[in-house]
């Protein structure tokens, strides 16, 4: 499987006044500093003993400053810890290190891949924009409600006396929730609530759930409503 090839990365090291060299980033950690126990030793008093390091975590490389006296910059900005991307320039004193990453050859597959069995996150993918949403409203024909018409803007629109009900029943014995009109994708459907004694659509009893069509007459808990689709709106 060519798209699982591990990414390889290199560091182009340009030491001030010493020309350049290339280092393959094969280790999990590449330490940089003045002391000789570092992988990359830079003999310069402006460089701290243990100045910075590059750590590889799965397929991603990170640059960390190890609380150095003079600091570490990435693309001109001081950092304490930052992810490395291709062509990033690390500056330590007057020395420059260019991070070069070879992305896996397959172009069809999004990188990075770590392990096919493991869940991997692919960031920054385009999100499919939602299509235009159908909107609808109900008109109150008869019964006690706090308004005469209600736009159905929510996914779940409760008809009842409870707080948060979209179609607010104000009759004395109105149930907290009489019925629910739900939008799912491009369609609306109505279903009776537990407290509902009856729910009629165009005079027919609704037991489970029924899809609503433009002009449908709804009768529930002492109110009569007309369902209207508002076409052409977004």
């Amino acid at each position, binding site marked *: *499987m060519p798209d699982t090839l591990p990414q390889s990365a290199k560091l182009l090291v340009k030491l001030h006044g010493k020309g350049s060299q290339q280092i393959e980033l094969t280790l999990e950690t590449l330490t940089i500093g003045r002391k000789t126990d570092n992988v990359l030793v830079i003999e310069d008093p402006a460089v701290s003993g243990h100045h910075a390091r590059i*750590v590889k*975590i*799965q397929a*991603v490389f*990170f640059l*960390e400053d190890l609380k150095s006296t003079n600091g570490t910059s990435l693309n001109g900005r001081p950092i304490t*810890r930052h992810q490395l991307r291709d062509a990033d320039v690390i500056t330590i004193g007057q020395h420059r290190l260019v991070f070069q990453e070879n992305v896996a050859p397959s172009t069809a*597959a*999004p990188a990075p891949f770590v392990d*096919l*069995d*493991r*869940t*991997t*996150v*692919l*960031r920054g*993918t385009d*999100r*499919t924009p939602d299509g235009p949403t159908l909107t609808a409203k109900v008109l109150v024909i008869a019964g006690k409600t706090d308004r005469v018409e209600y736009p159905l*803007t*929510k*996914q*779940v629109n*409760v008809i009842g006396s409870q707080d*948060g009900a979209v179609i607010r029943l104000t009759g004395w014995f109105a149930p907290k*929730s009489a019925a*629910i009109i*739900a939008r*799912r994708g491009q369609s609306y459907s109505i*279903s009776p*609530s*537990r407290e509902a004694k009856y729910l009629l659509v165009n005079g027919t009893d609704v037991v*489970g759930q029924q899809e609503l069509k433009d002009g449908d007459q709804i009768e529930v808990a002492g109110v009569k409503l007309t369902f209207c689709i508002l076409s052409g709106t977004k």
Partner: protein
Amino acid sequence: MHSAKSDTGLKRPHNEDRFVADPPLGLYVVCDGMGGGNAGEIASALAIEAIRTHLAEADQRADLPLIGSCDATVSPRANRLASAIRVANDAIHRESWSRPDYVGMGTTVVAALLHDEVLAIAHVGDSRLYLIRNGAIQSLTTDHSWVTEQMLKGFITEEEAERSPRRNIVTRALGVENSVDVELTEVPVKSGDMLLLCSDGLTRGVHPNDILHILGGPDSLPAMSDRLIAMANEAGGDDNTTVVIVALRDDLQAGLWERLKKLFAA
């Protein structure tokens, strides 16, 4: 009434899945963590803890600030659930910078908040929620995964998506970035409905029709969750598997009973 079970599977060294089933809060969550070493477990554990804590606090204090933007198409309760998930995102993201081996850790989340006859669902990633009603099973979540997005765009078929070696790539996850796009859905539910929240360990190997066969059967809820886990392991057990099954009849009655008790206690 509910039953929840989580299993490491046959091939993984750890179980990075975590779940919550908290009937008094009406909260059910499944998280499938990812990251090197034990980072995946840390991420999923942080997520469930942050989500539960935020919702419990919101129950006590109505003025608890809502994190993130408010979605006018869903109820305040659903917005509270999304807020809890954003808090979790922040907790994981901050923790991920505390140790080198935590970098990049994240988790999927599917969370259901049940109140009376309305179910709010929030999800990020490829953990799913199924509704089982009148002998039919329907997924109420759309995976945030590369293959699903390709399928929705019509580039690949459902069959190709199921076989794709890239099924493991999620396009959204909790904790990976400093903000997260939470998908919120709200639906009416009723007595007799069943919910199944699960990690992809179940859905990779077990077809929804086979899940329906178990959940539509006469078994007790714990026997059903055992059976689903066994089926995932029979299909290879490549991944951790977590299932949370909620049978709505008893939950609604329990909710009523709790409210009655509170009424008399007051």
